[in-house]
């Protein structure tokens, strides 16, 4: 059994975020001839633990608080930085993803990495702390964007005022297009989720919409239309087609009765359970049909007290239908 990797949002971000988004951009640097005692001041004033050494534009080394301590112990505090610096600098590219930096930190056991651009010029500096801060910021940005769009969708019925506001979603459903089966109902489900409907309500509506959608795909000559009308206190799902029509509506409603051909049954449809599933999930259902004209299935879900959160009672309050 192969080990299956598990990806968290954080791991995704490590791969997605470019280094330039998390690095510190105002790089404090020293020149090769800066003395170690001057370096001590640079580190102290800026509260940092290391800086790159640049000769003009050219990166020649890196010097850290550790090098400073060693110089202090050895009484070499007046030496120029170039004498005590580490010349082997480890750099990352600013457009690389953060994961490359994480790898280099682990590989070289260094405290900071220098970030360079296309031309090899130093454009930033990166510590483990910068990565942590950058990731946290990115996560909270994502979270905020999601929260804001959810907030807006949820309050649509409060923001837009009218005597009766409804949101109508229409979906064309193609005949015999089994591959697309459930696409319209998935979208209705997502819209309800956006609007903040409770999971129980969403599930009941989604199942009903799916059964109605599949009926259009399986039975309607030319497919049909699936319409979801959403109001704060009621949701109506309507499936309309233009034929062939149902000769005996009573019989069609009885559980287990199906006119689906064998090949459709082999796909797992046509169990004769669709309409009874809808009846069980909804508050009311009405099927009108005329042979040669078409069928219209109306399904109603009462949301009490309202669509917006807190509607958890709606599951219990709905009247029993069998």
């Amino acid at each position, binding site marked *: *059994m192969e080990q*299956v*990797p*598990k*990806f968290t949002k954080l791991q995704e971000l490590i791969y997605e975020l470019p280094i330039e988004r998390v690095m510190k951009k105002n790089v404090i640097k020293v020149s090769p001839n800066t003395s170690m005692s001057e370096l001590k001041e640079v580190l102290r004033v800026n509260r940092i633990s290391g800086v790159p050494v640049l000769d003009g534009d050219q990166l020649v080394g890196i010097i850290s608080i550790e090098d400073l301590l060693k110089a202090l112990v050895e009484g070499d505090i007046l030496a120029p930085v170039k004498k005590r610096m580490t010349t082997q600098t480890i750099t990352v590219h600013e457009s690389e993803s953060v994961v490359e930096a994480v790898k280099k930190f682990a590989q070289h056991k260094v405290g900071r990495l220098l970030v360079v651009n296309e031309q090899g010029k130093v454009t930033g500096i990166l510590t483990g702390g910068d990565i942590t801060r950058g990731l946290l910021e990115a996560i909270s940005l994502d979270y905020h964007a999601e929260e804001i769009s959810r907030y807006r969708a949820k309050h649509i019925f409060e923001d837009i005022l009218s005597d009766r506001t409804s949101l109508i979603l229409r979906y064309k459903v193609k005949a015999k297009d*089994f*591959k697309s*089966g*459930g*696409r319209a*109902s*998935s979208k209705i*489900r997502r819209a309800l989720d956006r609007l903040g409907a409770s*999971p129980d309500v969403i*599930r009941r509506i*989604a*199942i009903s919409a*799916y*059964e109605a959608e*599949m009926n259009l795909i399986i039975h309607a000559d030319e497919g049909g239309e699936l319409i979801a009308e959403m109001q704060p206190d009621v949701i109506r799902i309507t499936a309309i087609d233009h034929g062939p029509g149902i000769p005996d509506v009573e019989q069609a409603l009885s559980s287990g009765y199906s006119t689906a051909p064998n090949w459709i049954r082999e*796909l*797992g*449809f046509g*169990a*004769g*359970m*669709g309409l009874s*599933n809808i009846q*069980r999930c909804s508050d009311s259902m009405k099927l009108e049909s005329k042979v040669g004209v078409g069928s219209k299935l109306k399904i109603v879900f009462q949301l009490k007290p309202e669509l917006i959160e807190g509607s958890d009672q709606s599951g219990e309050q709905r009247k029993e239908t069998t």
Partner: protein
Amino acid sequence: MISLKEITEKVNIKPVSSIRSLDRMVVGGYASDLLSCALRSAKKDSIWVTLQCHQNVVAVASLSGLAGVIITEGNEPDQETLTRAENEGVVLMVTPKTTFTVVGELTRLGIQGEHGTK
């Protein structure tokens, strides 16, 4: 409760989509090859065992909020089905075993089929 990951290891079934969701916990089990029956009776967060492997399996699993689907008897979902499962975050798993065998093994792991409706 048991996670999908533990199930894949103990029953030796292969996850083929949405593997990032394998830590999802499973509350119960259901088996049928009829989609409407699965919609009616498979509880949210339960695992569904079926030999159907076309795209509508994904639709049913997603609409019902199932924890995952085990596709039996060596049936392999096609690329379109896998893509759709990936997009909707549905965990599909495959096995050459029969539905009967898989259900037996799931039962031994303590996964129960609940009586009645969801």
